[in-house]
């Protein structure tokens, strides 16, 4: 699975003392103790790591200035890296950000060509992928605005009701991209982190509900972000296994899913040829 993992030691995150942070913890716990979904708990544990990471993001750095050990823990979110081979993470880092240069950058050909097309006075803003912005931030030669999905207006929308938003349309890799953004130096980074986790919590119940109860779930599925899609698919498979177990019992041997799909594709291809 191309899922985000921590390169840092896992145990460190798990031992992360959440009690020391009085951070709306009651709301997060209410997700973990959802009793009305049979498989929720199991799936939640699979994604616990991800949720913990989101939770680390949520901590306000200012609170712990007097306690050095805590600051170390708080800054941990900066060291959390996605899986090196994760296609999703690579694609998320490819999302464009609108930014403007504050220093002159020379010897980069494609920048020259972009700027020569434009009237320099009117609009000095250009769009660059996140990984490039990161490079220029090291030399402090660039400044950027939060992209549309994370600006103040959309943060307001997401806080008001996260369930009605079409996240996939808004930003394909909403959580991952948001996570990367909030790791950068920006005055709104803390607000973005908080919105991310609150959005995830608010939408989680609905995602599970859709996955377990609706048969034709394509329209709902289209509205989910990539991370939610993974959760959704896992939840659906789990629910199907449960249904099969309840109706037919266990021990039934079946054709491998890969071969079944392979055959279906063959039939389809031969029909197209005809």
């Amino acid at each position: 699975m191309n899922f985000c993992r921590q390169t840092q030691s896992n145990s460190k995150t798990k031992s992360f003392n959440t009690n020391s942070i009085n951070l709306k913890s009651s709301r997060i716990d209410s997700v973990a103790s959802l009793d009305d979904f049979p498989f929720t708990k199991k799936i939640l544990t699979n994604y616990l790591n991800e949720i913990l990471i989101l939770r680390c993001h949520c901590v306000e750095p200012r609170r712990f200035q007097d306690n050095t050990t805590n600051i170390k823990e708080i800054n941990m979110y900066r060291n959390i890296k996605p899986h090196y081979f994760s296609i999703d993470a690579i694609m998320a880092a490819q999302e464009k950000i609108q930014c403007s240069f504050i220093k002159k950058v020379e010897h980069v050909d494609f920048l020259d060509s972009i700027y020569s097309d434009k009237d320099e006075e009117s609009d000095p803003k250009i769009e660059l992928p996140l990984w490039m912005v990161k490079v220029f931030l090291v030399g402090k030669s660039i400044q950027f605005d939060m992209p549309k999905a994370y600006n103040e207006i959309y943060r307001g929308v997401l806080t008001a009701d996260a369930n009605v938003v079409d996240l996939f349309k808004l930003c394909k890799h909403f959580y991952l991209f948001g996570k990367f953004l909030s790791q950068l130096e920006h005055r709104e980074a803390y607000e973005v982190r908080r919105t991310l986790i609150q959005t995830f919590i608010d939408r989680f119940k609905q995602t599970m509900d859709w996955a377990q109860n609706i048969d034709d779930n394509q329209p709902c599925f289209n509205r989910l972000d990539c991370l939610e899609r993974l959760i959704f698919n896992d939840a659906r498979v789990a629910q199907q296994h449960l249904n099969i177990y309840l109706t037919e019992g266990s021990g039934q041997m079946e054709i491998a899913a890969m071969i079944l799909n392979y055959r279906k594709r063959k039939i389809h291809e031969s029909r197209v040829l005809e």
Partner: protein
Amino acid sequence: MYCDKVIELLKELERSREDTIPPYNNDGINQVLSEMKTLDAEIIDFLRKQKDNLPLDAIRLRRAAIERNKRCLMTYIWTRLQRLKEMRWEIGAILPSDVRQNLSQSEIEWFNNYCKTLVSYMKTIGSDTGLNLTQDTKPPKSLYTEVRSLVDAGKLELESGEVLILRKNSQYMLSRSQAEPLIRQGILEQVRQ
């Protein structure tokens, strides 16, 4: 812009279904490699020409582009190998011909090595004959099971030495260990109780 080609490669891989392997894009990979070489040459050029007042941002950007290209190429190969590995467990050691066509020479080599390693590992565990890890993926309830043949598969030699001719739509009682691989390949179907 830098790294556009390698992103195209990954998109191609992402678009394909999870249980298939698209053709190995040799041209695309060579293009990315040559882009990396050009970037590297440019950096060396900067370092030679300007001893002081280096264009740090330009060099940093090129270095990041090289690193990113490397990461993406490795991801491309790694993802394909993961799918291939899964196929070994799902389909077995013999790949369908159109999957095989899409692989590169070194991928076929890797697959053969993987099969060898897996088999030699399975020989070393369990009792003296070894343990087949691909068998009994679900807990067995009985030693024998009733199956129906879905195709005219021809001769099947049983463990006892008898030869059985599988005909379409006829039912047999087979030992579970012998029936399971055939069921997974879609030749037989387990009769529901």
